[in-house]
């Protein structure tokens, strides 16, 4: 049942992605992209990654959709036609990268493999000691905010920097 659900979600993911790419009205494209984020969140939830699912739901399906809608308000709903030569160039790039990605995927460990490199390195130590060391039952929070807090610090700085950049750029556009 879980496999069936996951397969259905992945098919839906491809469908909404195609809808987002194919739509001539950019409003439809943005809404399809929001739906993509939501299906992605459901996919993460279906494979048990609750924290990632949560983030995807609020950011991928929520915040980015609203930001893109606001951007459409300031620009236009119509898609500008792509040059025919560019379309073929894009097709070639996508085909080459896609084949390479599919080839690499074959070399990845299967999902949920307990012998995968990611599952045998530091993860077992975190899972075994997280409650004793940090008093935090949610291991994801403990890893993000304690064991790997340098990463999260830099991420926060990145968000702040992006905010200052957007703020200054968009403020200037008015004058």
């Amino acid at each position, binding site marked *: 049942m879980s496999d069936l659900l996951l397969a259905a979600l992945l098919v839906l993911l491809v469908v909404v992605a195609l809808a987002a790419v194919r739509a001539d009205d950019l409003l439809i494209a943005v809404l399809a992209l929001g739906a993509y984020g939501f299906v992605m969140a459901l996919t993460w939830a279906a494979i048990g990654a609750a924290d990632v699912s949560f983030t995807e739901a609020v950011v991928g399906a929520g915040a980015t959709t609203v930001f893109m809608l606001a951007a459409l308000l300031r620009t*236009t709903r119509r898609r500008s036609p792509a040059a025919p030569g560019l379309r073929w160039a894009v097709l070639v790039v996508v085909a080459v990268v896609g084949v390479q990605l599919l080839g690499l995927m074959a070399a990845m460990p299967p999902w949920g493999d307990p012998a995968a490199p990611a599952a045998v390195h530091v993860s077992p130590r975190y899972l075994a000691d997280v409650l004793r060391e940090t*008093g935090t039952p949610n291991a994801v929070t403990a890893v993000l*905010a304690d064991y790997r*807090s340098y990463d999260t610090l830099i991420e*926060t700085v990145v968000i702040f920097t992006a*905010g200052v950049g957007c703020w200054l750029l968009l403020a200037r556009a008015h004058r």
Partner: protein
Amino acid sequence: MIERHESIVVTTFVRLAVPLAQLFGLYVLVHGHESPGGGFQAGVILAGSYIMLALGLGHETLTRHVDEPRWMALAAAGVLLYVAAGLAGLPRGAFLDYAGLPVNGVRARWLGILLIETGVTLAVTTTLVVIFCRLAARERAS
């Protein structure tokens, strides 16, 4: 410019839903230790509540509550709170090692996590709201 929605159903719903969303955002922040979520998700939910305010009651209502320079200063304060929580442990340990916080045992790490998550929430909420404010400030130029 996003105008106030003319339907009383929408405006009444927004008035009810905004405080609930903010309460949920705070819950996600302080309950991140136990359940999915944490500072980042809480920040986006809180920002979402402000965006909902603008969509329902109009952009002017949002700008009445959001002083952009002050909010960007708050974003910086969030980053600084993170750094300060890291520095607090420095005398008795390393940067971002919460064992140095003046709390005994495992609660120090628990508190350290809460402090930096609060910083993240502050930075994310203010940044997203200010970007939305700027982005939605005016409709297309032509």
